[in-house]
């Protein structure tokens, strides 16, 4: 990696820290500090704030309003946000469907959708998984049959994050009944206000409804909402998955929670000795520190390979696997270290703004993250899928 590129990334990190300190509204900072669940309004406000900084689509080409960020800048940006404990950059519009539209869409589609994605004027959700097609997307069964100038869509999507807030759903559908599993798939943009779209929230163990079932019953979708060619949806989906798997924020999340654990261990005394100086806890934190160092260095190595175009195909999987494992384990230790406070929260009140009955003011938020992060090794390609990919692509097994 060139010194110039490294310096650029460092400047960007400093800009992000300045932004957090001076631009980010106090209420959002407070919610972030307490790891509170954000409302749709919070998220839309957050994404627009990023847009005002020129950051929401900075990874897009300059001609489309981006800054043409390299993978290194993308990583530095998301990593720094995550370290500060900021809300995540909601990826469905700006990271997932946006690039698909500008890479494969028509001019009319670009003009229609890209501006609203950039400013989060329209909120997007991803319609990939189905009850019979989780990691194995080739098993999807939602049908979109051409009827004149529109498609009629029938099927069911599941695990659809923020579908309850979404204006649009980008969707993998089957446009040919007879084709092989991967060739009959197309990429369709569906207006969530269309008749026949029903959203049923799924409550997760943190008591919140992050994900949904989306039922599609005789939904009429204009043919002009097809991306690219019929039957090529798999190609576009793979392009999108590649973006999904860059896993930029995970390193920062792991850092953030490890930092939180260290603070707690310094502030908490047991039998007169700070937790961080109790041999067993010190050893555990030391192990996490070491694993974090390995993760961070491997992430830089991976990003450098992406910049140089020398990837071997294992890079994104490595970051996701190691990052999510560490994130989960450190979180477990933190919850354990909180002792009685770590279980003294009524799930039904986890998302209210009130203070927890015991422990520091961010205890509820930590628990929320602890529950939610169990999904980190499942979404975006489960750990098992990541290992399958590397075995096949890199090792040739």
């Amino acid at each position, binding site marked *: 990696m060139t010194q110039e590129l490294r310096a650029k990334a460092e400047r960007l990190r400093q800009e992000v820290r300045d932004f957090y300190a001076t631009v980010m509204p106090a209420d959002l900072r407070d919610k972030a500090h307490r790891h509170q669940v954000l409302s749709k309004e919070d998220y839309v406000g957050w994404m627009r704030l990023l847009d005002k900084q020129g950051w929401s689509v900075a990874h897009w080409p300059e001609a489309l309003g981006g800054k043409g960020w390299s993978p290194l800048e993308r990583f530095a940006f998301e990593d720094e946000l995550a370290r500060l404990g900021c809300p995540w950059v909601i990826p469905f519009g700006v990271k997932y469907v946006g690039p698909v539209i500008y890479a494969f869409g028509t001019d009319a589609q670009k003009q229609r959708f890209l501006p609203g994605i950039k400013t989060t004027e329209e909120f997007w959700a991803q319609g990939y998984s189905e009850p019979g097609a989780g990691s194995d997307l080739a098993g999807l069964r939602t049908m979109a049959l051409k009827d004149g100038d529109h498609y009629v869509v029938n099927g069911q999507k599941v695990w659809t994050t923020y579908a309850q807030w979404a204006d649009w759903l980008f969707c993998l559908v089957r446009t040919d009944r007879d084709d092989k599993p991967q060739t009959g798939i197309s990429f369709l943009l569906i207006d969530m206000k269309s008749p026949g779209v029903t959203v049923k929230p799924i409550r997760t163990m943190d008591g919140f409804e992050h994900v949904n079932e989306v039922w599609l019953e005789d939904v009429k979708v204009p043919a002009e909402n097809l991306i690219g060619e019929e039957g090529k949806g798999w190609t576009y989906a793979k392009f999108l998955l590649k973006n999904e798997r860059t896993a930029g924020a995970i390193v920062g999340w792991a850092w953030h929670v490890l930092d939180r654990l260290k603070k707690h261990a310094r502030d908490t005394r047991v039998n007169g000795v700070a937790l961080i100086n109790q041999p067993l806890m010190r050893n555990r*934190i*030391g192990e996490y*520190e*070491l694993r974090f*160092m390995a993760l961070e*260095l*491997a992430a830089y190595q991976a990003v450098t390979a992406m910049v140089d175009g020398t990837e071997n195909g294992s890079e994104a999987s490595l970051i996701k696997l190691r990052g999510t494992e560490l994130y989960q384990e450190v979180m477990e230790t933190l919850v354990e270290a909180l002792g009685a406070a770590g279980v003294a929260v009524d799930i039904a009140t986890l998302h209210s703004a009130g203070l927890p009955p015991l422990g520091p003011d961010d205890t509820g938020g930590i628990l929320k993250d602890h529950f939610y992060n169990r999904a980190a090794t499942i979404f975006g390609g489960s750990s098992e899928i990541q*290992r399958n990919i590397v*075995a096949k692509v890199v090792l*040739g097994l």
Partner: protein
Amino acid sequence: MKTDLETIGMLRDSAARYADDNYSFQQRWAVLDTPEGYSRKAWSDFAEFGFLALRLPEEDGGLDGDAVAVGAIMEIVGARLLMEPLLASSVVGTGLLLKLGSDAQKSALLPQLADGSLVLALADEDDAARPCVFADGRLSGRKLGVLHGDIAGKLLVSAQDAARGEAVVVLVDAAGAGVSRRTHKLVDGRGAAIVDFDGAVAELLQPESGTRADAALADIRDEAAVVLCAESLGIVRSLVHITTEYLKVRKQFGRVIGSNQALQHRMVDCLLLQEEIRALTAAAQQALAGPAAERTRIVSGARAYVVHAARKVCNEAVQMHGGLGVTDELDVSHYFRRLMVNAALFGNRDAHFGRFVDAALAA
């Protein structure tokens, strides 16, 4: 110390090519059978290629190689299980002499180090019952586990200076009066020695720069730790390659064992460890030239992680080869044993982990 990438690529390629032609696993059996546990022919070839002068300043005919350059060679040393005293003499011995030797000492010894006529080993680990003491130009005490102490012509010995009450490093003729060596092999086939000094004539290393011996020893131990990371990377890369290929050909129950997901996933974990080792080694090489606190954190952290990770890969390579994995006949067991020695040199995993934790949690 700065070596450009092109030079480093050439060094790596020439070492790899040499190993291909002259140091295959089959050819290596002959080296294992020698009493001295290394190939004199290879050693003089390395001298010719300039590998032995890697650490030397350009004005002394060296390459002024930095940690990256040294690592490039040492990665091949690990990958091909080379037995010659590159680490002991060309990196550690030469490096310590460069830091602590007087101009006269350096100009006397460096040419011999570069042409391979002198093997200079560091005797650092005291026998707790007989620590080394230097007084009036004489050295007494016992050193343990001196890598290549069996073939060294001279020894650099860390000792306590009786008069000044501080650490010093002295130069001793290994065949001199008052020096007795009990030589032995290490589990990987290389030689070592337990060395007793009984009033042996010893020459104090006193650099014009005034560098203190304890600081120089700390530096050289860090440097050795980083070099061992590079060697481990070579070991791990070879094992990942060898084992992956084996999974593709070994058949059981009518299919290659590499088609089993359980083994695929474990092999992927080995590959991930390899990539982490690569990243940590590179970071440790850079950190050597950096500020002291950061250097300790990164170097010892890298060393602790790398030893642990490399050991996991070695264990998996043996396991996945089944019964063959534990045989002497197969190279896998030789990598396993080489890593055992590697892991025991210049501070083990716990020692480096402890140093890392104290540095990382110091804030």
